[in-house]
């Protein structure tokens, strides 16, 4: 099956980041020497004085951003997901513990950087970030989700982990009109028999699978779990007008994700 309309998640992210810099003058962007690869460089080109490449030093990156946050600017830390995990302890002991208004906008997660090999592929980050007190975790499914969620995320108060891929990002949510808010998921397909819950780029595969299942006579719902933490009751998708949710509570639930099982999305759903 051919994947259509593939565009790059980081390209969309980089351009949006630069435009948010225009709108919010208190935003600063920090990175550990991956400005070009993450496309944070687009922000640097527009706002060089509000852009900080700290060098290849992720631990310093996190605590330096923390320090900036207490002076009244709003730091956005942009890095590869994997290498940010090197500073998980700094994130835990300074950012989460002090509940600082620092956002982590990461790219290259999951297998999206397949070419660079296993050193660059982070499958554990959702598990690691979900468990931190005060943290929120948001995962856009495709570039259109980035467009509808990034500004909401930047405006949100408190620490937040925003998980993106690199280039691979088949279009899933282009034709949907939902707006994003923290805590809320989106129903991409309604169904009664089976519910597939996914987060990130795998939702494209989930949608293909749901179509296959339909052909087999299994009426399948697909839920885009953008807000992995927090998750509102019933995914926050109960429709106002008829009280319907688009999926059936208690239907068989299938989880689809590209990060490790233990502590990740599966755990989030079951708890």
């Amino acid at each position, binding site marked *: 099956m051919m994947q259509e309309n593939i565009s790059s998640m980081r390209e969309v992210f980089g351009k949006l980041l630069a435009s948010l810099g225009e709108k919010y003058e208190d935003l600063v962007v920090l990175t550990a020497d991956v400005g070009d690869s993450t496309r944070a460089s687009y922000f640097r080109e527009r706002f060089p004085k509000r852009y900080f490449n700290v*060098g290849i030093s992720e631990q310093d990156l996190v605590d330096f951003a923390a320090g900036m946050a207490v002076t*009244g600017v709003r730091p956005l830390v942009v890095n590869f997901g994997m290498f940010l995990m090197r500073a998980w302890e700094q994130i835990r002991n300074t950012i989460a513990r002090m509940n600082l208004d620092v956002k982590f906008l990461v790219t290259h997660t999951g297998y999206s950087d397949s070419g660079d090999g296993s050193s660059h592929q982070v499958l554990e980050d959702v598990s690691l970030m979900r468990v931190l007190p005060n943290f929120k975790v948001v995962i856009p499914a495709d570039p259109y989700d980035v467009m509808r969620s990034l500004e909401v995320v930047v405006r949100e108060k408190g620490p937040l982990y925003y998980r993106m891929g690199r280039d691979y990002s088949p279009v899933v949510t282009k034709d949907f009109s939902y707006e994003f808010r923290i805590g809320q998921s989106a129903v991409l397909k309604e169904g009664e028999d089976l519910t597939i819950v996914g987060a990130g780029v795998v939702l494209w595969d989930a949608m293909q699978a749901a179509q296959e299942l339909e052909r087999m006579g299994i009426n399948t719902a697909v839920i885009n779990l953008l807000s992995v933490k927090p998750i509102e009751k019933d995914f926050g998708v109960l429709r106002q007008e008829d009280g319907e949710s688009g999926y059936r509570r208690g239907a068989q639930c299938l989880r689809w994700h590209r990060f490790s099982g233990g502590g990740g999305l599966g755990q989030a759903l079951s708890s």
Partner: protein
Amino acid sequence: MSFVVPMGDDVQPISLEELQKLKQIAERARKNVIRMLFYDQTIHVGSSLSSVEILTLLLSRARRDSRDPLNRDWIILSKGHAAPALYAILAEMGVIPKDELWKIQDINGLLQGHPETFIPGVDMSTGSLGQGLSFGGGIAMGIKMKGGNGKVFVIMGDGEQDEGQVWEAATHIAARKLDNVIGFIELNGYQLDGSVDEIKPKSYLREVWSAIGWNVLKADGHDITSLNAAIGEAVKSGKPSVILCNTLRGKGFPPIENTKKQRSSPDDARKYLVNA
């Protein structure tokens, strides 16, 4: 009183009267750290007594009352295990109630084993070593960006220099020429498991900090006048400065002074306090 002076001016020297007052605060704080042993025997008394004079001087002269994050001074106790000294001095200054000192590390008390920002007077939650200098660098950058005049004081241990993050931060702060950062390294010669010399000698500190681009100064870490003079030099230097402070672990408490021992028995504490 403050460490902020017009460009080129000297930090005001300490008058005899002020020195007397600060020495009294330090002495009372020292005794109260030792007295905490009655209530909890796991606190890091040795490391706390190493920091008493540095913290006394900073907490009394730094501008602490401003709500403006850019024009106040920040005191980061990166060696967070010296929290009892910080708490004892904050109590002397009326920032926290003295009664809380006797509930140190009690689950119902205010004062945690390591500094937390929900405690009045604490600027950074610390306890995991090596993180204070990066945080201080970030504050200094924020202040510079917006044209404030606040200074950032970061207190580290010599054992703490083992942490790689210290060097990430030191090179970063030097590269950005953040001359509003003043670091302190207490050279008390001990870390948790033993003497610094046995574990990883630190004879290189002066040369390495200097080579990175820091103004490296020396002070007697238990002599308030010496510390104030070094801060004066730091303020005038136009570079990020680090003050290597000769201190003693357990300073003034004979059962543990200048040993790797962090703590002693309540009985020892009682004997000391009766005679002191």
